[in-house]
C-alpha cells in the first residue's frame, strides 16, 4: 500500500444536517476555542451538559478547576518569587527551620485538600452511577460494532422491541439504562452532553444510566480505540418529550414503507437483488441480513455511516457508490451497481421513513 492511496473522506459531501438552520457556527476562531467554554462547538461537549449526570460532573469539574488552578498559581508564584529572592537567608538556622515548617505545613495541607477531593469525588461518583430507576425506566441495549452502533429498545413484549442504528432516541425526564455489549472489539459509549463514558466489552455487559430534562440533540462518539475507523464511529442521541418519543417508537414498530411509485418499486428490486440483503434487513421485505444496520426506517435517520455524513440523497449516493472513499476500511462492501440503478435505490431508501 502506498501513502495516500486512499483519501480519507469525500470532499464533495453535503455537510448540512437535517433540521439544522443554515447559520451553524462554522469557524470558531482560535480565541473562541480557547476562551469561550461553551456552545460554538458541535453538540459533543462535556462543558455544555444537557443530562443530569453530565451537569453534576461539570459542577465537580468546575470546583476542581478553580481549586487546583489557585494551587497552581500559588506554586508558580512561589517559584517565580524564588528567582528574585537571591538567597537572602542562605545558611541561617532559624530560616532553615522556618522553611522546613513551611514544607511540613504545605504537605499536611495537601493531604487535607486531597482527602476532601476524594470524599467529594466518591460522593459524586456514587450519584452518577446510582440506579436511576423509579419503575419508569427505559432499557436500551447498545452494541458496539466495527464501526457503528446497534441499538435495541428492550421490552417484555417481544413484538414491541425496536431496533435501530447509530441513533438513540430518549424521552425527556425518564431515566434510561444503557446495557452495553460489543460484537467484536472494545468500544466505549460516550455522549459527553449526557454522561461519562462506559466501555462496551465483548463477553461482558456493562451498564450506565442517562437522563436529561432538556430536549435536544447530543452527539456521542466511540472513545476506545477500536481500529481503522475509530474516528468515524459517532451516534446521535435525540432527547424528546415523552409524547414525541412514543410516536417515534410507534413509527419504528411498523414494517418498512412499501414503495409508493415505480421508481421506488424499482429501487426495492435493486436492493433485494444485490449484495445489500446479505448484511442489511428491511422489515416487511425478504431482506434480513443481520450483520449490518437495520434499514427499515433508514429515511428517518439523521446520519449515514455512523455520524459521518448527514443523511441526504447526495451523500447516500456517494456512500453507496464508494463507501471506502468516505470511510476507508469500513465493513460496508463496495457493491457493483449499474449506474441506472442508483437513482431508484436512493429514492427507495430515503422513502423508508
Amino acid at each position, binding site marked *: 500500500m502506498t501513502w*495516500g492511496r486512499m483519501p480519507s473522506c469525500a470532499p464533495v459531501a453535503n455537510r448540512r444536517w437535517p433540521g439544522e438552520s443554515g447559520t451553524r457556527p462554522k469557524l470558531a476562531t482560535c480565541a473562541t476555542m480557547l476562551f469561550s467554554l461553551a456552545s460554538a462547538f458541535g453538540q459533543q461537549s462535556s462543558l455544555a451538559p444537557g443530562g443530569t449526570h453530565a451537569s453534576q460532573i461539570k459542577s465537580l469539574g468546575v470546583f476542581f478547576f478553580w481549586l487546583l488552578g489557585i*494551587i497552581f498559581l500559588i*506554586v508558580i508564584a512561589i517559584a517565580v518569587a524564588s*528567582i528574585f529572592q*537571591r*538567597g537572602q537567608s*542562605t545558611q541561617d538556622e532559624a530560616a532553615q527551620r522556618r522553611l522546613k515548617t513551611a*514544607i511540613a505545613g504545605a504537605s499536611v495541607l495537601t493531604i487535607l485538600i486531597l482527602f476532601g477531593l476524594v470524599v467529594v469525588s466518591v460522593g459524586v461518583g456514587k450519584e452518577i452511577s446510582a440506579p436511576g430507576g423509579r419503575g419508569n425506566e427505559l432499557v436500551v441495549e447498545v452494541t458496539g460494532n466495527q464501526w457503528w452502533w446497534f441499538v435495541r429498545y428492550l421490552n417484555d413484549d417481544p413484538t414491541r422491541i425496536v431496533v435501530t442504528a447509530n441513533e438513540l432516541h430518549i424521552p425527556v425526564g425518564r431515566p434510561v439504562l444503557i446495557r452495553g455489549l460489543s460484537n467484536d472489539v472494545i468500544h466505549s459509549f460516550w455522549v459527553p452532553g449526557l454522561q461519562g463514558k462506559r466501555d462496551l466489552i465483548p463477553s461482558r455487559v456493562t451498564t450506565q444510566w442517562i437522563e436529561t430534562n432538556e430536549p435536544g440533540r447530543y452527539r456521542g462518539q466511540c472513545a476506545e*480505540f477500536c481500529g481503522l475507523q475509530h474516528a468515524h464511529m459517532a451516534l446521535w442521541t435525540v432527547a424528546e418529550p415523552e409524547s414525541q418519543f412514543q410516536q417515534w417508537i410507534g413509527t419504528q414498530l411498523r414494517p418498512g414503507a412499501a414503495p409508493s411509485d415505480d421508481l421506488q418499486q424499482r429501487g426495492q428490486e435493486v436492493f433485494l437483488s444485490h449484495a445489500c440483503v446479505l448484511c442489511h434487513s428491511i422489515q416487511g421485505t425478504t431482506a434480513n441480513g443481520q450483520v449490518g444496520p437495520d434499514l427499515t426506517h433508514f429515511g428517518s435517520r439523521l446520519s449515514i455511516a455512523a455520524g459521518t455524513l448527514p443523511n441526504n440523497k447526495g451523500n447516500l449516493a456517494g456512500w453507496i457508490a464508494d463507501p471506502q472513499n468516505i470511510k476507508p476500511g469500513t465493513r460496508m462492501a463496495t457493491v457493483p451497481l449499474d449506474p441506472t440503478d442508483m437513482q431508484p435505490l436512493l429514492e427507495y431508501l430515503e422513502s423508508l421513513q
Partner: protein
Amino acid sequence: MTALEELRAEPQQAEELARAWKNRPGPLGWISVTTHQELGMRYIVTAFIFLLLGGIEALMMRIQLASAENTFLNPARYNQIFTVHGTTMMFLFAVPVMEGMGVYLVPLMIGTRNVAFPRLNAFGYWIYLAGGLLLYAAAFTNTMPDAGWFAYSPLSGPQFSPGKGVDVWAQMITFTEISALCVAVELIVTILRLRAPGMTLNRLPMFCWAMLVQSFMIIFAMPAVMIASTIFLLNDRTIGTHFVNPAEGGDPLLYQHVFWFFGHPEVYIIFIPALGMASSIIEAFSRRPVIGYPALVLSLVANGFIAFGLWVHHMFATGLPQIGEAYFTAASMMIAVTSGVQIFCWLATLWSGRLQPTAGLHFIFGFLFIFVMGGLTGVMLASIPLDLQAHDTFFVVAHFHYVLIGGTLFPLFGAFHYWFPKFTGRMIDQKLGKITFWLLFIGFNCTFFPMHILGLHGMPRRVYTYVPEMGWGPANLLATIGAFIIAAGGICFIANVLKSRRFGTKADPNPWDAGTLEWSTSSPAQAYGFIHLPVVASRYPLWDQEKSKDIVTGLRNDRREVLVTTVLDAEPDHRLVLPGNSIWPFLTAVGFSIGLYYSVFAFSGYWIATALGMIGIIGWFWPRQPLDIRP
C-alpha cells in the same frame, strides 16, 4: 586536593589505570566494550535517535490533525504511526535514556570505577538496540503494529490485527524489558555494594536514590508486561491460546489489568530518575544542599510503592465495583502527596539558594511549571466522575504529555546541559541552551495546552481525523504549529550539542562548583573514573572537603579492581576484580535476538534463542586462569 592535582602528582598510576581500563582497538574492540561511560553514552545517544524518530512520527500525526478531514495520512497509516510513536517514546526512548544516565553517572557519583556487572551492562545495551532495530526494521518493511502502544485485546488479537505488526510489537517489549531488567539489577547492586567508603545510605546523592527506587520498580513491574505481551498476547496470536480472546472464553480485562499493573509504574520508572536529576541540578545551581533530604528520599520511596497501587485508574470506564473505584481514587490522589512534598522541598531550596541563571536551571523552572500543571490535571483524572468524561480524550493526551515531557524531558534536557562538561569535557553553549529552552517551553504549551480544551469539548484520542462540524479545527491547528516550534527547539538542541562538543570552551573538573563526587574527576571522566577511590565523610564531599581528604589505597591498578563496601554503612568489605572487555555479551545478545526475532513467526524461535543464548553464556562464563582478568 582535586583529582586534577592527583593526576598531575601521580602520572604513573594514571597511566597504569588507563592501560587496565583501555578498550581494545578496532570494530571488534568496539563491540566488546564493558566500561560504564561508553555504554551509558551509547544508551543515551541511541535513545536520542529514537526520540528523533518518535518526534518525526509526532509531527506526522500533528500534520494529519491540523485540519478536519485531512488526507495526509490514511487511517491505517495513522494508527500505525501513533502506535509506533507511543512505543518508541515509552520503551525505546524514555526508559533507556534514564538507564543510560544512570549507568553513566551512578558509578561516578558513588565513587567507584564501573557498575557491578559490566558484561551484563553490555548485554543489556545490545539487547535494547536489537529491540529497537526489530521495531524499526519492521516499520520500514511495512510491518508496523497498529493496535496502540497498549495493544488491548481483542483488537490486538489475531482476528482484528492481521499481519505480523502486533507480534513484532509484543516481542519488541521483551527486548526492552530484558534490557531494563539487566540495568536494574546491576544498578541496584552497584548502588548498594560499590559505594565509596563512608558514603552511608544517608549520604547517597539524590539521583542515586532515584535510580535505586527506579531499579526496584523495574524489577517488580517489568515481569507483568512480559506476561501481558508475550504470554497472553503473543501466544494468543501465534500458538492459538485464548488467554485474552473473548471469542473463545478468554478475558480481555485480564489483559488490561496485567498491562496497567506494569503500565502505571512504567510512568514512574521514567519519571523518578528525572526527579533525581532535578534535585541534583537544583542543588548545584542554588549552591546549597537540598532542603529536606530525608523527606525527598522517603517520598521517592513512597512514590515507588504507591505507583503499584493505582493501575486501575486507567480502567475506570470499564465499570468497576464501587468500592474498588473509591479505593483507586484515593490511591491515585495519594501519589499527589508524595509528589507535592518533593515540589515543596525544591521550592524551599530554590527560595533559600543563590540561583545561577544557567540553561540547566531554566529547564528546572520549566519543569516545575509544566509538571505541576500536569500533576494537577492528574488529580482531576483520579476523580472518577471527571475521569469518565476525560478518559480517552485529548484531555488525557494533554495530561500525560505535561507529566511525561514536563516531568521527564525537561529535567533530562536540564541534566544534559548540567552534565555536558562531564560527558564531553567541554562547556555547552548557555545562550543556545536558553534558546532551546524557550522554544521547547513555548512550543510545548502551544501544542498541549489546547488539547485540554479539545478533550473537554469531546475530541477522543487516537482518531485519525474529525468531522469539520465539531469546531476542533483551530485548536488543532494551534497544536500543530506548537509541534513545529518544539521541533525547532529540538534542532536547536542538536545544533548546540554538535557545536559545543567541537568548539565549546574546555571544562574544569568542577565547572559548576557542585558538591557531588562525579565532579571530582577530570572532565571528561576517564574510563577508570578515579585515580584513587575517594573516602566520603558528608553528603556533599566537594563542598565539605576539610572533613575528609582520605583516599582508598591498596587497590591494584594493573587490573580492573574495585572496592566492595557494606550495604548500609559503606564500610570496606572486600576487593572485587571486575571483568574486562568481552565480546561474549554481544554474541549472546545476537544469539538471543536471532531466536526472538524468529519467534515472531514460529514458536520454535524460542528454542533457537535458548540454544544460541546458551552458547553465548557458556563462552561468557568460561573460567579464566589465572583469575586476574586483563583487558
